[in-house]
């Protein structure tokens, strides 16, 4: 890659930051260049973020319909899935999955709720509620 071909089109997902990339300069040698981003990068990052947002939105709909627990919504909001949440809390995955059911979640002990809240970086009160309908 030559220095004049280094993409500087910007990438919203970088939040204004620039990354470094090695490219061939005018002297014919490779050197680091700060680059503002490439659309390709933005497309694949947005794809991953949007997938997690979609999962969170779906979960929210189900929480409101009474078929999922708030834990599922907060799990996806924290960009986790059941495997990662199990690893983070140190619980078995089958238990985490069980706790995604509203009737089971409602009966969780304060200790377990605190464990989930800590793993997700939330307060317990946040964990047991979901945002009100807009």
């Amino acid at each position, binding site marked *: *890659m030559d220095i004049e071909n280094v993409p500087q089109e910007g990438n*919203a997902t970088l939040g204004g930051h620039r*990354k470094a990339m*090695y490219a061939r300069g005018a002297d014919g040698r*490779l050197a680091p260049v700060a680059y503002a981003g*490439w659309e390709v990068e933005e*497309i694949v*990052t947005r794809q991953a973020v949007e997938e997690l947002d979609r999962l969170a939105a779906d979960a929210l709909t189900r929480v409101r319909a009474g078929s999922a627990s708030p834990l599922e919504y907060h799990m996806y909001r924290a960009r986790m*899935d059941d495997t990662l949440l199990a690893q*983070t809390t140190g619980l078995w995955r089958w238990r985490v999955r069980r706790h995604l059911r509203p009737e089971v979640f409602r009966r969780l002990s304060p200790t377990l709720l605190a464990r989930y809240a800590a793993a997700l970086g939330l307060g317990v009160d946040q964990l047991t509620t979901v945002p009100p309908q807009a």
Partner: protein
Amino acid sequence: MSDFQHQHASHCESGVMSAIVRHYGLPLSEPMAFGLASALSFAWLPFVKLGGLPLVAYRMPPRAIIRGLQKPLGLRMRTETFRDPARGEARLQELLDAGRVVGLQTSVFWLPYFPQDMRFHFNAHNVLAYGRDADSGDYLLSDPVFEEPMRCAPADLARARFARGVLAPKGLLYYPDGQPAEPDWNKVIPAAIRKTVRVMLRTPVPIVGTRAIERVARAVERLPAAGDTRQSLLFVGHLVRMQEEIGTGGGGFRFMYASFLEEAATLASRPALAEQAARLVEIGDGWREFALAAARMIRGRDAFEPAALAALLRRQAADERAFFGALEKALA
């Protein structure tokens, strides 16, 4: 602490290690740290899942550069992990008080200075702590992938250092024991290159090296192209994301290794290596072509054609195989 110089790098671990080595007296560029540690690679581990997607890496696993620089530079790296976050924090403070710069393994998700869209649960991000702000208590961090030094509140840093899950950092901190020495470039450079050639061409398992690229090609080819392609496209996007985000911009690792070869050609007086650098830049451009083709399909600008993407990957595999063969000959 005040004499520490932040430098923008393209990859976190090579950036941190070159900064540490430089800080302790031996000027070492990021590509040199990357190449000397034989960090270039390709790996496909379908049984390790990150967010439900198989692990694919365009370089050696985390900590390979920290470990790999010890022998060529005669540098002993001390690494410490902690079960108890409070002890990990106390130890970091102790080292900073002693005037050291300290490498840390962290989770990207819990570092608040990362842009929102980049915050995924990736646990092997390396940063360097070089001090603390007396007023706010914030840690002063040199995160090599950012242009400027960063700051981070103690609670956030603790959370990032003790994140759990795949590649959990367990509070890992590292710092050199003693001074790095200028090596005999004529010895260490060929040895490091030979190791990379071996990994790329002759690993006994087909999930590492150029054969692994072919395996990924096969996996892409098998993706359903009709019906609900969301899952297929997520997989393809993931392949690109691993090069882009964690992989320094398209063919990033290939470009960085090419830069290493160019520098190595001068240091070891082996001009043949510089010719190989030019070839590797073209291979890096090939990875970018793949990324571009994939992104166009993800956005729906082109029809989703797994066979076309697989063909691009096969070409990369063939090019890399020929390249590493030629690189080995260039050393002879």
